[in-house]
């Protein structure tokens, strides 16, 4: 079978080429994933912290319920809920753009997974860290801000990296509510041109490039944040 890449130079009927269109679609994918990442990290870190609070059983329950709720419904169904059902139930939400709704859906879905990682990271720290902070007279806020979170977030950074790459892949379900991102592009252009292989190859390549980009960015951040001589070392001379 001969691949025909000329297809990308053809006009799609509205004055732009399929190449320009796919670049637009790529931008959509990146903006959906990027915005959802911000939502997911903020909400996920917050919920992860709430799950480890020592003396607030109700907040712990709330955050546990949050994680269970968003983990046990398929992402596609959640996207439908955000896009169709919530605006029906709360008419005020009809003003919100479809893009924002998908970002919330994807972001909250991912936040449950990030909360789980953050909780694990905080609980992986030796108990002495929390006790030491309390002995120093830190408030709960200060304990988390200055003692627990700085180390916990560094510990969970590698799993957060793979969650970020998952988030990018998951952004593909936005096709179902007609966000003009890469998967939507793949389905539509496949239909229009019948050059499915070329179109899918291009889209798959762009997903792979984006995933690599996220990986590079997260690894760079990991190196920047590394506490000198803390992780990865621990040879002789580490004692007193």
């Amino acid at each position, binding site marked *: 079978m001969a691949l025909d890449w000329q297809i990308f130079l053809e006009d799609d009927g509205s004055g732009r080429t399929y190449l320009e269109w796919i670049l637009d679609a790529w931008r959509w994918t990146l903006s959906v994933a990027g915005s959802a990442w911000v939502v997911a990290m903020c909400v996920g870190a917050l919920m992860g912290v709430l799950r480890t609070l020592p003396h607030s059983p109700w907040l712990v329950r709330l955050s546990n319920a949050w994680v269970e709720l968003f983990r*046990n*419904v398929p992402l596609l169904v959640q996207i*439908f809920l955000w896009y169709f059902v919530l605006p029906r*139930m709360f008419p005020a939400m009809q003003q919100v753009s479809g893009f924002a709704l998908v970002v919330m859906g994807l972001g909250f879905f991912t936040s449950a997974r990030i909360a789980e990682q953050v909780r694990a990271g905080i609980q992986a720290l030796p108990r002495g860290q929390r006790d030491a902070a309390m002995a120093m007279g830190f408030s709960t806020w200060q304990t988390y801000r200055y003692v627990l979170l700085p180390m916990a977030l560094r510990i969970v950074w590698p799993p957060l990296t793979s969650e970020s790459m998952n988030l990018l*892949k*998951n*952004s593909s379900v936005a096709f*179902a509510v007609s966000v003009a991102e890469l998967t939507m592009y793949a389905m539509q252009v496949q239909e229009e041109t019948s050059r499915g292989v070329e179109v899918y190859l291009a889209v798959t390549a762009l997903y792979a490039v984006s995933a690599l980009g996220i990986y590079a960015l997260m690894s760079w951040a990991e190196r920047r944040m590394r506490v000198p001589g803390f992780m990865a070392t621990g040879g002789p001379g580490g004692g007193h």
Partner: protein
Amino acid sequence: MGNLDLSFVDLELLRKFVLNGFLFSVQLTVVSTVGGILVGTLLALMRLSGNRILAWPAVTYVNVMRSIPLVMVILWFFLLIPFLIGRSIGAELSAFITFIAFQAAFFSEIMRAGIQSISRGQVFAGQALGMTYAQNMRLVILPQAVRNMLPVLLTQTIVLFQDTSLVYAIGAYDLLKGFVTAGKIYGRPEEAYLLAAVVYFLICFGLSALVRRLQARIAIIR
């Protein structure tokens, strides 16, 4: 919340539209779990064989599968299978093949971790007893690996059950599609989405609770 009306839902609707979809989703989950574990174990053994010609294809396959969005994998298979075998197959059959192939990549990573969690001494002990590679794997290593990894395998299966809803992309008739169809026919799409969410939640939440109990029971105390 006032403008949702769930009064159209009755057993008749569930039986007519939802039941078939539900059965398909369950079948798809079970078949691709079993198939995925078999193929995935094979991939893991290839990767751990220490033989480059065997390991390289396995590594490449797993990495490629894991770096593509599942929706794109579903679309790819739906496009390529008819092209390769020269005739079209339905969305349902295509979904079975896709999910076995996709799950194999994930299960192979789980099985690899499971096999590597068994101490080397076990392998040597098997060899010292004169077992062949196949006997050693089948009788000594894999049973322990599966046992160690059972909670992870089951959790992954619950994730898989949720992921089967993505066959929406090729129009296969699964649990979600059952609700969507019913919603369309009764003119109540929003209510149908909400119901679908509740049903998925109850199933997945119930299964995860079971997995947690199982995990507590089978944990090997060392």
